[in-house]
């Protein structure tokens, strides 16, 4: 095991100026996640889960504190450097799929690799689409796919560049139970297969039960952080 944590947050705060007063959304988060761990981040709506995920992924800058990804300090990086780093290190799955509407399923899956400047690997894209059961639909545009299918395309896209970290924000939040279960199974399967570090934000206790560690947020603070035996 590598001793260096894959994700390390130290004293991270985020406050937002809302008119005259300042709202502190995150209040001093300390979190260290070793490589390969599957962490579920839980908490009530508005507790700051998405905000934390955004900071850890470098989508947003913290008001104070430091964030290291795979040994690299990211809170001081500028936009383009951050984008590069995201492209290399992080796969995303969002609640609302977030596919590019003007690209087909296959083109969406290929995009992160193109953006990273590592050429294209249509073989891998097809393999991933095959894995999520959408080999037949690869020339379809997002609007031609159901929510569950779109989320499976997003899943394939997230794994395209073999990122060391996968971050998912309520990936099954918009799906019905059966589709949600299917997507989650695929996610866990791919995660095991690719050996990524997985950060999963969810409301759902059952989903969280699959994780090796559960972090509970309340009002912008970590109120519990426990390891558990994942139920498989």
């Amino acid at each position, binding site marked *: 095991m590598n001793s260096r944590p894959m994700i390390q947050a130290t004293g991270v705060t985020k406050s937002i100026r809302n008119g005259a007063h300042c709202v502190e959304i995150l209040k001093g988060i300390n979190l260290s996640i070793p490589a390969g761990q599957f962490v579920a981040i839980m908490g009530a709506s508005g507790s700051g889960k*998405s*905000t934390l*995920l*955004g900071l850890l*992924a470098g*989508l*947003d800058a913290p008001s104070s504190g430091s964030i290291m990804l795979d040994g690299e300090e990211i809170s001081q990086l500028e*936009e*383009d450097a951050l*984008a*590069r780093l*995201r*492209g*290399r290190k992080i796969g*995303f799955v*969002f*609640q*609302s799929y*977030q*596919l*590019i*509407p*003007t*690209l087909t399923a296959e*083109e969406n899956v290929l*995009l*992160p690799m*193109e*953006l*990273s*400047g*590592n*050429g*294209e690997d249509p073989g891998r894209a097809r393999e991933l689409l095959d894995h999520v059961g959408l080999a037949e639909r690869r020339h379809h545009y997002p609007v031609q796919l159901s929510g569950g299918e779109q989320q499976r395309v997003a899943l394939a*896209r997230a794994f395209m*560049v073999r990122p060391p970290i996968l971050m998912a*924000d309520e990936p099954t939040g918009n799906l019905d139970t059966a589709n949600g279960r299917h997507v989650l199974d695929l996610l866990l399967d791919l995660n095991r297969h690719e050996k990524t570090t997985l950060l999963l934000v969810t409301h759902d206790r059952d989903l969280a039960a699959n994780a090796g560690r559960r972090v509970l947020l309340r009002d912008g603070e970590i109120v519990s952080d426990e390891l558990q035996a994942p139920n498989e």
Partner: protein
Amino acid sequence: MNRAPQKTLLWRTAAKIASRELRATPGKFLFVVLAVAAGVGALSGVRGFSMAARSMLLRDARKLMAADVMMRLREAPSAEQKATLDALSAQGIVRTTITETISMSVTTGAPVPQMVTIKAVDPRVYPFYGAITLAPPQSLAEALRADTVAASDDLLQRLKTGVGQTLRLGGKDFRIVAALITEPDRLSGNPMAGARILMSRDALERTGLIGPGSRAQNRLLFRLTPSAGVEDVKSRLQKAFPGAQIIDYRETDPGITRGLDSSTVFLSLVSLVALIVGSLGVAMAMHSHMQQKMDTIAIMKSIGARSGQIMRIYLLETVWLGLAGGVLGIALGAAVQRAFPVLIQRFFDQRPDIVWSWSFVAQGMAAGLASTVLFTLPALLRVRRVRPVLVLRREMEETTSASGFPARAKSTAAIGVPLILGFGLIAVWIGNSWEIGGYFTGGLLASLLALSAVAWLLLRSLRWFLRAAPWKLPPTLRHGIANLYRPGNQAQPVLVSLGVGVMFTLTVFLVQRSIVGDIVSKAPPERPTFSLWTFVPNKSRASPRWSKSRRASTARWNSHPRSRCALPPSMASPSKTIRMKT
């Protein structure tokens, strides 16, 4: 891993996204493309026509002068100068003189005198090149005798007369033997449009209009012999007539090209304004388009796209719109070029050929593209301000704006300076002069700043009004007004571009007026000046009622001898004595 294929790969994907986005909303950009097309079309049409006209002037230089060499003269040649002319004649170089002057003419049928330009030629030798067309057709030597004239159609109409009738000039009767249809050297003569009379030099003598002090314009035409080199003849003439304007067939007549050039520059700048308005339209359409694509931009950023990579998509879209406008504009320009000669036919006997010049196509396209891209640059650069964290929010937020005055000023300058510089270069190129380009760009910059300030003030005071208003506005109105100054709202740019449109329309109008004034006041002195004064009967002092004069002031008028235009007895009632300075 080499980088080049990676780059083309990304461009390919950007092109895919761009083309699909544009195809999804074909109507959105139609009007702005048409606006760019109008600008490019006008620009390439004007310049294309100007080039065609210039090449025609050169190609037909002999015909347009009706000679190999032409000299404009204000004074009668001195004895010494006559000797030079005689020496040339001895060498076999044929010479003839054309005199043009202005007078009034009447017929018994139309008692109101009409102003006419009289052109007197020697019908035995004139013209050396080209031909005079008369209706009914006849040779010039047969037609023009000491008591006959040919008159232009419009004069015949105005005088309510026709071929076979007589008209009066300088108190003498002349029989109209033909209608004057075309003259090869029409452009070399008096620039005044309108009624014309062609007569022989003998007939002009008979009118008595030419005397000491009369301001007639003389042109000496020369036909060279094969042995007499044009350069040699010209230099001898220049030595003998220092300061006289001498033109040979190898060059265009500056008297004509000066007018052509200034109209070309003026019309080009007007076209450029149309292009600016079109480009501003593209920029604003692009801005609102990108505002709708913020989620796509945020997604791309979240999966590793840098701003520069995303900008390629919208740059491509802009370039394609500019190109579409350009291609349409070139087609339009070709139509304009075709229409132009018809519009100015009365000055050009021969229509200029339509030249299809790839350099003008390229220039029109370049101007269209450059101005479209330049104006869209600010919108394109906003890609940098889209925050990737948008992907985590269900509701979409506005982009962040650079905060604080220095940061904002810096980012404005970063966009504004290259924009103005680029634009200035286009204006310099079109105006063909650093000075014109500079003035034009300065004017644009100043007006943009002024309009922005006005728009800002307007929106500010609206906001203040909304806050301070003691009464309650209806909620719909309140929301409507509040929307105008919401961050990210386009009210200010919309106001500014509206202002630009209105302002330029006004400027074009004013400039056009002042150019006309300029042409009138700067006309070369050898062009005749004339004044018309009406004398009211039974009053001892003359009272000027109407005067049209370029340079003639009353003082000058008085210092010049004037000829009196004697009217036929039927007209000579004292109510209308017209005095002419010719």
